[in-house]
Structure formats: C-alpha cells, structure tokens
C-alpha cells in the first residue's frame, strides 16, 4: 500500500489473538483492516501463547489482501514491550496502541518502533500507529496525540473504555459520546489524518448499528472499528459514495490532469478552485467506489500528487 493516508480503511475488524479458527479466516473477511487483538480478547495467562500464535500467523499470511494492525497490551503493562518484540518481525502494517492517553506514550512507542526497524533493517517509519483515544485524558490530549509522530495515520475513538473512565453508561443513541467524538474528529482532521469511530458491541442489533454508522459518517469519521464480520457490509454500504459524488470526483481528476498538462497545480472547475486537497478527497472517493465495484477506474499516485 503506497500511501497509508490514502488507503481505504472503512471497516477495521477486531480478531481475537488466541483463536486459530478466527485468525485463519482473516484472508477471507471482507474488511479493509484487521486489528489482531493481544489485549482485551486474551486472558492474562494466555498472553505468551497469543503472542507466539499471532506472530507465526502473520508471518505465514503472504499475499495480504488487507491491512494488518496488532493491538498490543498497553505499554505500562508487563506485556506491551514483549508483544512488540514478538510480533514486529512478522511485519504487520502497524500497531493499535491502547490507552494512548498522552503524546508521550505514543512517542515512546515511536522510539521502540524505530529501534525495531533498525534491528530488522527496515526503513524508518515502516510501522504505523493508530492510537486508541479511550479516556477523558486521551480525548483532551487528542490534538497533540494526532501530531506527535508521522507514524500516526489515524485516531481511533474507544467508547467502551471512555464511558468506563467517565463513570457513565454507554447508550445506543450515544448522546453522551458527542463531545468526545467531535473533539477526536477535530484533532484528526486538523492533523490531516483519519478518524476511526468506536465499536458497537451489540451484534444482534443491526438497526441501531446502522443508525450509529450513519451518524458518524455525517460527523466526518471515515472508518469504524468492528467486533463482528457481520458488521462489515453495513459500514461499506453506508460509507459508499453516492453516484453524484463519484461523477464529481471523476471531473476533479480530469481537471487536475488538464492543469498538470498546462504546468500548474490548480485549476477551476465549474467556478470552484481545484487544488491538492480537493484532488486527494476526490481520489479517496474514487478508490472507495472502485473497491466496492461501483466504478472501473485506474488511478495512479502520479495523478494525485503530480509527477516528480
């Protein structure tokens, strides 16, 4: 995946780390990203076993058809660092970091990843980070967290831990989450990275789930963490671009190609200025449409960024 800020990451599915039957299904799940979980889904006395199983599974998962992130245990636990040592040689795309309450915690992970990249002979910055914003402090610090490392490609809001931290109930309508969600969104958008919404735990209640996905899409989230493969299709349906959005995106791409031919990076389309951010947004719409079979279109990075 060439540019992680542009890759399609709508559906991010948790998979428990100590279950071979689930791990083996990862290649056939239709989500964009998996979070293989070494944290909450693994009992304390199985942390060592899950670590070994996950690293061997990821190493054996060739020809990957989706992004692979590992949710490690928090860095202030006795398992977090060993999780990294064990799983990074299998080359996941990145780490989902729980309890990312401060930029310092994320910077610590950044340093560890750099050391591991040096040891493994990888380019610095290979491993990405998705911090989980799941406490009052995390929400307050989310603006700094979003900008503290170039590895941070998205912020993921975690409502279950957040409501526990706030000592409040999580409701299906989610009014209690509104301010926190908005702040995480602003932080991500201001930093130019993706905002990923929290899980919805009641797998049986697909109507409330869909309502929540529609809400967070309207707010500006572009991805959602999921607990069950059954939830993936709903996210893809709700996040699918509308025909007029696709048509406009195609016009934008054609306009910027014309602009580049004229030697400029900016051009007007129907009286509106088209420049890099508009092109990037159009590219995302097109990639989403292509991935869902709504459009047949070849788009290479040179069109999006211009030739060097």
């Amino acid at each position, binding site marked *: 995946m060439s540019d992680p800020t542009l890759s399609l990451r709508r559906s991010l599915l948790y998979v428990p780390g100590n279950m*071979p039957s689930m791990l083996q299904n990862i290649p056939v799940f239709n989500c964009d990203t998996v979070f293989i979980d070494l944290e909450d889904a693994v009992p304390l006395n199985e942390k060592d*076993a899950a670590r070994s199983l996950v690293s061997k599974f990821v190493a*054996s998962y060739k020809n990957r058809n989706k992004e692979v992130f590992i949710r490690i245990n928090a860095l202030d636990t006795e398992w977090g660092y060993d999780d990294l040592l064990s799983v990074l040689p299998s080359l996941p795309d990145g780490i989902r970091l729980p309890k990312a309450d401060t930029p310092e915690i994320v910077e610590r992970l950044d340093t560890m990843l750099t050391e591991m990249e040096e040891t493994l002979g990888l380019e610095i910055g290979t491993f990405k980070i998705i911090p989980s914003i799941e406490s009052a402090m995390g929400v307050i610090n989310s603006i700094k967290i979003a900008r503290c490392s170039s590895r941070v490609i998205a912020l993921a809001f975690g409502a279950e831990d957040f409501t526990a931290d706030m000592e409040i109930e999580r409701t299906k309508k989610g009014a209690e989450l509104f301010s926190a969600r908005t702040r995480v969104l602003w932080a991500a958008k201001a930093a130019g990275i993706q905002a990923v919404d929290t899980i919805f735990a009641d797998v049986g209640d697909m109507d409330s789930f869909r309502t929540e996905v529609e809400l967070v899409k309207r707010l500006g989230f572009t991805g959602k963490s999921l607990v069950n493969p059954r939830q993936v299709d709903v996210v893809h349906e709700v996040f699918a671009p509308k025909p007029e959005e696709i048509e406009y995106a195609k016009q934008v791409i054609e306009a910027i190609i014309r602009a580049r031919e004229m030697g400029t990076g900016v051009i007007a389309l129907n009286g509106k200025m088209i420049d890099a951010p508009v092109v990037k947004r159009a590219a995302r719409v097109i990639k989403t449409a292509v991935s869902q079979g709504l459009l047949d279109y070849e788009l290479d990075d040179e069109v999006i960024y211009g030739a060097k």
Partner: protein
Amino acid sequence: MEIQSKARAGTMQSSDVVVFVEPADQLTIEIESTVLKQFEHLIRQRIEQQLATLEVTRGLIRVSDRGALDYAIDARIETAVRRSMEG
C-alpha cells in the same frame, strides 16, 4: 532449549492443538488427531522440525490435534516448551 517441567499450551477449539510436554531422557512424540489417518506423518514432521528449531532433543511430547495448521502447531509447541522452562 531443555524441557524442565510439565507444561501445556493450546486449546481444544477447532483448528487448534493442545501440546503437553514433560522431561524425559529420550525424545518421544505421541499424536492424537481428528485427522490422524491422513495427516499423521505431516503433523509429526512439523513437530519434529519445530523441536529442532527450538533445539529440543529430549522430552515427552504429547499432542492432541484438532486440525491445526502448521503455524498453529509451531506456536503451541514453542509456547509449551517455553512454559516448561519457566515453571
């Protein structure tokens, strides 16, 4: 590595395998599997390879297989052996 005490790893879920290890003077591998007839030789080969990788040359290894793939066999053997060294 040396198996120093009784230890186990793995679960009885499908696609998993339970591995029991205990100290012994010789290397013995006992396999019980839902797919024993077709795959015993392959399972045994995989276990032997993984023990060789871990430099385990003796011990009693008992394996109860529920259709585990190679990576899961490797991981459960590794975990059981490591646990036997910590216990």
